[in-house]
């Protein structure tokens, strides 16, 4: 039997998209021109789907830090953190993040995905139960599965549904509740105060994945818990370096006195090479840049509000009323979404094509992510292209219905 037979459905779906004249897999950026521009298919394109929230991928000080680390410490560590892969730079980054996040302990991972695998599998075991939001990112599902814990899914952003399930739960072992600071597809955030109220009535540890909210939310840029003033109620946070920090890697952080032991208990940390010196050096500098330039958050908020308002005003259906740098436009069906996405790309703006099962509620989305580095003109151009390509097509469909 052909082992790849099981993926035939994917091949058929891809063929359908090709029949529409659209190549959706593997958009190639031929040249990166700036945090907000790339050459795609030979055309200068506005990037509005790269999660480059702070727009610091070309920050001169980050580039210089990476260049220096590359020259002085080589191209890679060739080992895991528990073997030969711990450099002074790794320690320095963890100390700097500890200060930035105001958490006693920070453990870095080689990618954000691995941070979720490592943290969730390090925290929970087969005797424990994890309660996870229904709209959790795939890396959370995978980390939960790897842990071997019992997995109970609660309705998205519903503290009441979580409480119902906690009340029903009669299992032994520890209980961990997992939320995200900003959900990656719709850009919405959980009512953290309501979840904290539930925590006061039920015994569990609370973990927030701040992948899309670190740098973005809160007075100090520490994420949702910072914004909500509830950092003391959140026991563990997870984050990534591949969004606001403009690099690659991830972290877990906590004030738990035994947190450091996760290093020696979680395979996603123990059995993978540590991040390269250049990667760590750029991240370390990015932490300092984010700390020193809170005005980047202000720019991001202004740009996000401008795009959110602009897309709503041209009659598009947005998935979230609240402004965040993730702005998802709902489209009626998959073929329309694919055609519109391709038309937007050809018109000069790259957004994310997001389709089921990678989206909540079987929705088809044109997902935008805003950057502090976008200019007002960029945002207005994105809105005008959506008006031409998406709002126009939606109007045509309504007229012909």
């Amino acid at each position, binding site marked *: 039997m052909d082992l790849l037979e099981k993926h035939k459905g994917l091949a058929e779906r891809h063929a359908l998209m090709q029949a529409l004249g659209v190549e959706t897999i593997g958009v190639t950026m031929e040249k990166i021109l700036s945090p907000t521009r790339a050459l795609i298919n030979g055309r200068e394109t506005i990037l509005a789907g790269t999660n480059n929230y702070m727009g610091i991928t070309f920050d001169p000080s980050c580039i210089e830090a990476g260049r220096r680390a590359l020259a002085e410490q080589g191209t890679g560590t060739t080992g895991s953190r528990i073997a030969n892969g711990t450099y002074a730079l790794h320690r320095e980054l963890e100390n700097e993040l500890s200060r930035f996040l105001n958490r006693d302990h920070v453990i870095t991972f080689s990618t954000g995905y691995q941070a979720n695998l490592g943290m969730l599998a390090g925290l929970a075991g087969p005797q424990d139960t994890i309660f996870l939001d*229904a709209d959790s990112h795939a890396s959370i599902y995978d980390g939960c599965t790897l842990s071997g814990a*019992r*997995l*109970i*899914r609660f309705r998205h952003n519903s503290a009441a549904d979580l409480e119902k399930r906690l009340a029903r739960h009669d299992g032994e072992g520890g209980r961990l509740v997992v939320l995200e600071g900003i959900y990656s597809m719709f850009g919405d955030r959980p009512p953290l105060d309501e979840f904290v109220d539930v925590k006061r009535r039920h015994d569990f540890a609370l973990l927030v994945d701040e992948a899309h909210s670190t740098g973005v939310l809160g007075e100090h840029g520490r994420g949702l818990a910072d914004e909500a003033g509830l950092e003391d109620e959140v026991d563990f946070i997870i984050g990534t370096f591949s969004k606001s920090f403009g690099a690659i890697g991830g972290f877990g952080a906590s004030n738990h006195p035994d947190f450091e032991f996760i290093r020696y208990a979680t395979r996603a940390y123990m059995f993978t090479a540590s991040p390269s010196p250049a990667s760590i050096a750029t991240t370390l500098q990015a932490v300092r840049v984010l700390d020193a330039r809170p005005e980047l958050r202000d720019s991001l908020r202004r740009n996000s509000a401008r795009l959110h308002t602009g897309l709503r005003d041209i009659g598009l259906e947005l998935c979230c009323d609240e402004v965040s740098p993730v702005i998802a436009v709902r489209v009626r069906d998959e073929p329309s979404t694919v055609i519109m996405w391709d038309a937007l790309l050809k018109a000069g703006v790259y957004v994310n094509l997001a389709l089921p099962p990678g989206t*909540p509620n*079987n929705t088809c989305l044109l997902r935008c992510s805003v950057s502090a580095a976008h200019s007002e003109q960029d945002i207005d151009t994105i809105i005008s292209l959506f008006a031409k390509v998406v709002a126009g097509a939606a109007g045509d469909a309504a007229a012909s219905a």
Partner: protein
Amino acid sequence: MSAEPDDIFRDICALLQPLNKEGIELTRETRISADLNVDSMAIMDFIMEVEDRYDIDIPLNDLSDIYSIDQLVHYVHGLVSRKKA
């Protein structure tokens, strides 16, 4: 609420109807994912409807052993029976 296997079967069929896009006949042998051609997220959302209907929790870990409607009926019946006991 009655929770004999036949009642559970009828309930589950009703809850599955929104996923039954091709209108196939639902029997106890129907394979929920394969025969209805629905993805993993849709299955998990459907399971939440079943959980709400019977005020039970079905851990995601157990879903990998449930392929057919009949297997789900017996799983739910087991949980509901233990809850009553």
